[in-house]
């Protein structure tokens, strides 16, 4: 297995034609979409719904940044502000980031990458989407009926005793959306175990599959704990049982233990699929096998395992024992190891590669830089002494936005651009998308870098007003958010435009090695005409270059 890069000529696209028959035109009508069992159509349904929720959450972010333009709370009342940032968090975490890559790109690609016709349980896959919609409907209902102001963390006893907002409705929404995520994870795990094509051994799987496998373990094991903690909060609000209620002997801190037992791994549910995207993109545009394939594959699993033993770092200032905080602080540092393994291996993949700078690669570079900053500041926050100073300030806000927005959203956009030709059969416009990638990066740095400084200087999070000396940095941040907003709006516009006017992509516009690139774009409903037999490792560019003829399966 050579680790050198292979020069690959991109195929001429002028000759490419759209296949006559594909999953997009095999059936027509709304019903054929709403009752579909096809993983690719369900992926598209998810793509539309999470994009909608992203702009709902984004609108909330816009309102937050507008309010913080001035030191006084002048745009909205303080309790409205609480509702706005709560809704921003709930929507972005549970209804955008958690399903973002797995439910769209993952759903579309996992069966194809392993050479299967569909996920193991197509009906459960469709059910997941309906559960997602129901969860989103409850959450939006909570917002429309008057909002919820607990923050996305539902911290007790605030959520159980002191608020008269729609905690139960929002809680139910997250509970239901949680089951959507559980079923997606379950479907992925069974599919990866049981549906692989002949010859597709575990160590021939693309790293995208490994990272989704690891994320699915977290979804399946973590989300039920979130579900039960929300059920107990709801029961406490409605009938008044006392498991978290100190006046009845309960412990509010127990809620946080249960909540963070899910919500720390949830960070990895969000970021691991993104890391899978980055592995594919970096390999493709360096024309090299991912350096240290096995290490990258196992680091995903290691992140999933370690991820379950660090949750208490969210609670260092909440009165947990010093000794347990010490242990959790050490364990938190440990998670940085597999993450660093990934970053180093990606960098080594770039080394001496024949790198080209297509849009997905630009986003991937954004990811690498921003996630490294986000990850390193996570190590600051994981060390107890620093954490006591920095937690509950804008430092932590900046930290997790570097990981979630700088990391995950970059990876998501990278993946969407990378596989857009496969999903739709058409290219996105290259120049304007490069501009969008650049805008996003600049907007991002401008929005969130000042927040590190603000947090270090002591500006607390979750307040509508702040001392006037913080205004300059806040204005910078708001300006950045505006740029960032444009950066996100652009892809939505030109992607929609490209559906009709984009250049026809052809089967393998990037000359990538994955099985998904060896079939027509957009694929047939059953993906492969006959079950593929895999006889080469993942990312084998020599195999691709030596393929005398690119037999592409096209029908009609």
């Amino acid at each position, binding site marked *: 297995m050579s680790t050198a890069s292979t020069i690959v000529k991109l195929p001429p696209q002028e000759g490419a034609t759209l296949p006559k*028959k594909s*999953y997009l035109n*095999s*059936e027509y009508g709304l019903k*054929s979409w709403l*009752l*579909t*069992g*096809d993983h690719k159509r369900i992926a598209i349904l998810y793509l539309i719904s999470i994009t909608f929720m992203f702009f709902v959450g984004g609108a909330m972010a816009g309102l937050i940044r507008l309010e913080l333009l001035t030191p006084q709370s002048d745009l909205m009342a303080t309790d409205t502000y609480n509702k706005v940032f709560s809704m921003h968090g709930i929507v972005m975490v549970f209804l955008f980031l958690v399903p973002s890559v797995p439910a769209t790109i993952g759903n579309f690609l996992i*069966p194809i990458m392993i050479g*299967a*016709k*569909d*996920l*193991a*349980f*197509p009906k*459960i896959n469709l059910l997941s989407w309906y559960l997602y919609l129901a969860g989103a409907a409850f959450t939006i209902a909570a917002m429309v009926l008057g909002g919820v102001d607990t923050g996305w963390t539902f911290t007790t006893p605030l959520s159980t005793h002191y608020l008269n907002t729609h905690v139960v409705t929002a809680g139910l929404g997250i509970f239901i959306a949680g089951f959507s995520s*559980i079923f997606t994870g*379950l*479907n992925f*795990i*069974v*599919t990866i*175990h*049981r*549906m692989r094509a002949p010859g597709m051994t575990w160590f021939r799987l693309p790293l995208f599959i490994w990272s989704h496998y690891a994320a699915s373990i977290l979804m*399946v*094991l*973590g*989300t*039920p*704990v979130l*579900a*039960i*903690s929300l*059920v*107990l909060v709801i*029961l*406490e609000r409605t*009938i*008044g*049982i*006392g*498991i978290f209620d100190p006046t*009845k*002997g*309960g*412990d509010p801190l*127990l809620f946080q233990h*249960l909540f963070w037992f899910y919500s720390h791994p949830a960070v990895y549910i969000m970021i691991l699929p993104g890391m899978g995207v980055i592995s594919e993109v970096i390999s493709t545009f360096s024309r090299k096998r991912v350096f240290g394939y096995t290490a990258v594959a196992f680091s995903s699993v290691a992140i999933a395992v370690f991820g379950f033993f660090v949750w208490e770092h969210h609670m260092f200032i909440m009165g947990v024992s010093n000794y347990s905080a010490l242990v959790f602080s050490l364990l938190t540092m440990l998670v940085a190891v597999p993450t660093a393994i990934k970053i180093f291996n990606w960098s080594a993949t770039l080394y001496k590669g024949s790198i080209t700078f297509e849009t997905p690669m630009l986003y991937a570079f954004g990811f690498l830089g921003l996630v490294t900053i986000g990850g390193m500041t996570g190590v600051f926050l994981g060390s107890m002494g620093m954490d006591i100073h920095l937690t509950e300030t804008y430092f932590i806000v900046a930290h997790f936005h570097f990981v979630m927005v700088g990391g995950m959203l970059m990876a998501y956009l990278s993946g969407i651009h990378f596989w857009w030709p496969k999903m739709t059969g058409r290219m996105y416009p290259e120049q304007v998308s490069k501009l969008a990638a650049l805008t996003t990066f600049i907007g991002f740095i401008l929005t969130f870098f000042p927040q590190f400084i603000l947090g270090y200087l002591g500006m607390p999070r979750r307040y509508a007003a702040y001392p006037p000396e913080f205004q300059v940095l806040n204005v910078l941040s708001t300006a950045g958010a505006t740029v960032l907003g444009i950066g996100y709006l652009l892809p939505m516009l030109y992607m929609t435009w490209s559906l009709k006017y984009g250049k026809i992509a052809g089967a393998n516009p990037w000359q990538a090695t994955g099985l998904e690139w060896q079939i027509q774009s957009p694929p*047939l*409903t*059953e993906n492969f*005409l006959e*079950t593929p037999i895999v006889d080469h490792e993942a990312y084998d560019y020599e195999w691709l270059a030596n393929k005398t003829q690119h037999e592409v399966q096209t*029908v*009609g």
Partner: protein
Amino acid sequence: MDSQAIATSPEHTPSVEHAHPPYLRHHFETVEQQREASSFGMWLFLLTEIMFFGGMFAAYLIYRNWYYPAFVAGSHQLSIVLGTINTAVLIGSSFTMAMAVYSAETRNRKALITYLLLTITLGLVFLGIKSDEYHEKWEKHHVPGLNFSVHDFVNVNPAYPDDKPLPLDMAEKTQVYFSLYFAMTGMHALHMIIGISILIILVIKAYGGSYTDGHVSTIENFGLYWHFVDIVWIFLFPLLYLISRHQ
């Protein structure tokens, strides 16, 4: 509505040479693969269920260590007779469920329907006894939040005259015990209700001839679910009713 079946390649029309059994979904290669996938999926689902109940078991562990006397006094208010009967009923229903799986495997439709109906009956008996216990808790003012009084815990329990009455602050903590009692048995009962609803659908489909044509994985997987719900009770019964009985 099976879009997988519609979406075959143009040349492919279901023909006799492809002697697939009708229940083989199109994206699977073999019946064996389909069966393995669905049972694997079911085991994973049960794993999520373990995590779901696990949150409450963790809470139980912590609070029992903190408020041991309150947990003893609380469990002395439960009826060991009803609890034991219910345990027997549930184990019996697991037996009839296992027999139903066996009947499906041996393609005996009449026996399958009989055993499914027996399982439903036993499940309903369990729920009936459980609701009687809930009713008793209500009458005795042991329902935290809605209807609670410390009266029974600051006085001597006539059934356990050796127990010392609890001091007021510890008596208050019995609310945590009963919160856990209702949350855990309530979630368990909810799983029973869902199970019984699915059983009713299974009976109707079995009348139509399903499951005795060689395609038993639905019945097998439901059997796994039912046994799981049974096992949860096998843990709940000693934790809530038994282990504090003799100090």
